[in-house]
């Protein structure tokens, strides 16, 4: 199962802090998952905003990667500092 975490304003956009789901049919990469989530939660492209960073298993990723279906994925809007 994939665990997805939404932080900051994205939590409000997605209407949830986290969700756990099986990789949907045909979704094998992080970019296709983002597209799927954008549609599923009517995020209006919020996850594709260049300021939003993606972490897979708590590591920052910069390129598209394949998913096995057991990852923790975090979507991070710009951090606000302490």
């Amino acid at each position, binding site marked *: 199962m994939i665990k997805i975490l939404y932080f*900051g*304003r994205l*939590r409000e956009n997605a209407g949830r802090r986290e969700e756990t789901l099986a990789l949907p049919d045909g979704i094998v990469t992080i970019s296709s998952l983002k597209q799927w989530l954008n549609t599923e939660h009517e995020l209006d492209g919020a996850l594709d905003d260049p300021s939003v960073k993606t*972490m897979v298993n708590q590591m920052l990723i910069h390129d598209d990667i394949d998913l096995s279906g057991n990852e923790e994925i*975090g979507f991070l809007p710009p*951090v*606000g*500092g*302490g």
Partner: protein
Amino acid sequence: MIKITDISFNPTAELEAFTNANRDAGAITSFLGQVRDEDGCVNELYLEQYPGVTEAGIADAVSKAKARWSLTSVMVIHRTGAMGVGEAIVFVVTAAKHRRAAFLACDYLMDYLKTEAVFWKRQKGTNGTEWIEPRSEDYKDNKRWST
């Protein structure tokens, strides 16, 4: 020591404990950040972390500070959750043999915490609720250390 907590803490008691544990340090510098009321416009500040990632980032910044200056000990306490005006948000304490290292490391860590630390900040006040991002001055302050 790094502590991220959603429970309010007492900086005075923390400083006393730190000082007692670092009797050999010749210099101790501390910085306390607390919730401003912005002329009565702010009622609450809410901070969110990414458990694991936030602490790892702070630990990395502390390691960099220790590599850069000769430090005896470092303590970072950071709040998450909802905080009222006047409540402590962040407390950084650095101990060194001499004052310069303690001052500089404390300043360096605060610049990291204000711009790069993985926290999301939401302010609730008379103008509604908004997510806050670092000010341009914060980024400028943080760049001082890259030379």
